């Protein structure tokens, strides 16, 4: 059994708004073990970025932690001091934000920023610059030395993403959290970056929490997958189980909708009809009910619990319950 690195335990987080509390995360629990790559998928707005900003405690001012714990190496981060968090973020945990401009300071050259993040190292300025150039080269930026003096806006979108990844890796973290880090990369580079991440993960035994809408990338990179819907975990399990044997109707629909599965040209692409429920005004029963084509009476009354269905495979759907009890 490998050691657990990060434990999310019953985490519930709200955003206070003038329309009332928006229940962005509800009773989220899952683990990331040492050296493991865990993918998080789920519809836009389901709370993925909220989850990782909560882990890092980099949340918007209207965020309210209602319940639960986030433990990193056993320490509850929700109780840690601001100072402890700052140390952790620069050292043990690195992050690649969804919007690379959130990482980059627009008025500092990329080289300066990459030197600055090595402030804990005792190396000389020249050595730090050399390391920065080496990392830029490692993520496929041509002319790395010459480009160190350029500013973020002088790089292409995909380059900015790669620079953000390079910067996150410089501290050799135990946990890398990456929010949609490859959206601006073409397929060859995406694969190259994924391979780089895998390599690195093996070398440094670093765990990765990887958020992506690109199911192809998740399938390619991850060991385990957590599927979120409207602020809750609806299914989680081994990557093969999730893709080949999904146990929640939402997961199934998500995979069916992936255009990567549709080999002939379709003018109308499949979608999941209906909308995500209003998080400020949640319906009772199963949160997926309005959009589920297999909904039963019971689904309107009771919230399906997240149940263990097999080796490490969890799902929250009454259909499985029927099967189990039958």
């Amino acid at each position, binding site marked *: 059994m490998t050691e657990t690195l990060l434990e999310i335990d019953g985490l519930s987080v709200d955003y206070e708004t003038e329309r009332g509390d928006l229940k962005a995360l509800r009773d989220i629990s899952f683990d990331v073990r040492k050296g493991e790559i865990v993918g998080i998928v789920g519809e836009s707005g389901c709370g993925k970025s909220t989850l990782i900003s909560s882990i890092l405690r980099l949340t918007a001012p209207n965020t309210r932690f209602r319940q639960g714990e986030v433990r990193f190496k056993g320490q509850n981060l929700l109780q840690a001091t601001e100072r402890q968090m700052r140390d952790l973020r620069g050292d043990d945990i690195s992050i690649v934000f969804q919007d690379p401009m959130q990482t980059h300071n627009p008025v500092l050259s990329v080289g300066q920023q990459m030197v600055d993040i090595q402030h804990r190292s005792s190396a000389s300025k020249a050595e730090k610059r050399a390391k920065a150039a080496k990392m830029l080269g490692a993520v496929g930026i041509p002319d790395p030395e010459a480009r160190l003096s350029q500013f973020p806006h002088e790089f292409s979108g995909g380059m900015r993403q790669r620079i953000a990844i390079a910067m996150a890796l410089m501290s050799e973290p135990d946990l890398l959290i990456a929010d*949609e880090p490859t959206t601006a990369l073409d397929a060859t580079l995406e694969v190259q970056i994924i391979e780089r991440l895998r390599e690195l993960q093996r070398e440094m035994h670093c765990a990765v929490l990887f958020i992506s809408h690109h199911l192809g990338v998740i399938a390619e990179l991850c060991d385990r997958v957590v599927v979120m819907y409207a602020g809750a975990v609806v299914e989680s399990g081994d990557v093969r189980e999730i893709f080949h044997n999904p146990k929640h109707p939402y997961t199934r629909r998500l995979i069916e909708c992936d255009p990567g599965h549709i080999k002939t040209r379709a003018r109308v692409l499949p979608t999941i009809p209906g909308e995500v429920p209003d998080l400020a005004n949640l319906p009772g029963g199963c949160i997926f009910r309005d959009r589920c084509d297999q909904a039963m009476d019971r689904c309107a009354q009771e919230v399906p619990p997240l149940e263990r269905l097999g080796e490490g495979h969890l799902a929250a759907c009454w259909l499985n319950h029927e099967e189990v009890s039958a």
Partner: protein
Amino acid sequence: MSLLSVSDLQTSYGAVNVLAGVSFDVAPGETYALVGESGSGKTTVIRAIAGLAPAQAGSVTFDGQEIRGLPERSFRPLRKNIAMMFQDPVGSLSPRLTIGSLITEPYRIQGMKDRDLQAEAKRLLEMVNLPAHFANRYPYQLSGGQARRVGVARALALEPKLILADEPTAGLDVSVQGELLNLLNDLRERLGLAMVIITHNLSVVRHVADRMGIMYLGRLVEEGTTEDIFDSPRHPYTRCLLSANPEPDPDARLERIALKGEPPSLLNRPTGCEFRERCPFAQDVCSQTPKWEVSDGHGLRCLAPLS
């Protein structure tokens, strides 16, 4: 006749030649996809078309009118017909404006005072499947995908003839992505909307684009109908790109044609074929410079094309 015609477009930043002559045409109602390596100049092409990046040479005509190098003042009325969706959704939204004012800003910029902005905001939000109360939110209160949909609503506000869309589906989940592409397809059928779409998502290209161009180091290296390119790519770079698309299946961890080496330096462009050092199919003849050749509507820049 073409709605948009780009011919030998060139852009340099200082000594760095980012676009080394790009040419393509887009017919009314047509969707043209630009794909290619990160840093190959795709964003620069559409920014230059929209007058947002410099273009030192070449020509861009829209509806028959030359628009390259127009001063901003003359460009403004054109923006009614040419809309842009930016690659970076949150960064392109001004943080101090509410979503409602952001998506109706195009009406104000165009001086369309007769519009009921509140009603328009509601209509546009509905179109991109966001609830009406989002009109009162600020950009930081949106998720990444929601911000992207706001960018789409804003681009569609004036019902343009041409949309220049930079990675419009990046960061969208598959269902919303499908919805957005269906919406764009619908608009193009109803309004004859033409589109240049940059995307690294090849599955998206296959489903929406009529034709596609593949860029490498500031030039097109191949162009043709989408079916043609997917069925029989002839340029080795295209072949590598298509074979790399990650499949949504953990057991498919792939038969790929590896792309060797790093992207070359723009400061010191390779001689001969610029893809030569990384090309798995390079031959002696490739030390010469390949020319752009077109046969049966399939354009190619390669001395030893694949069959």
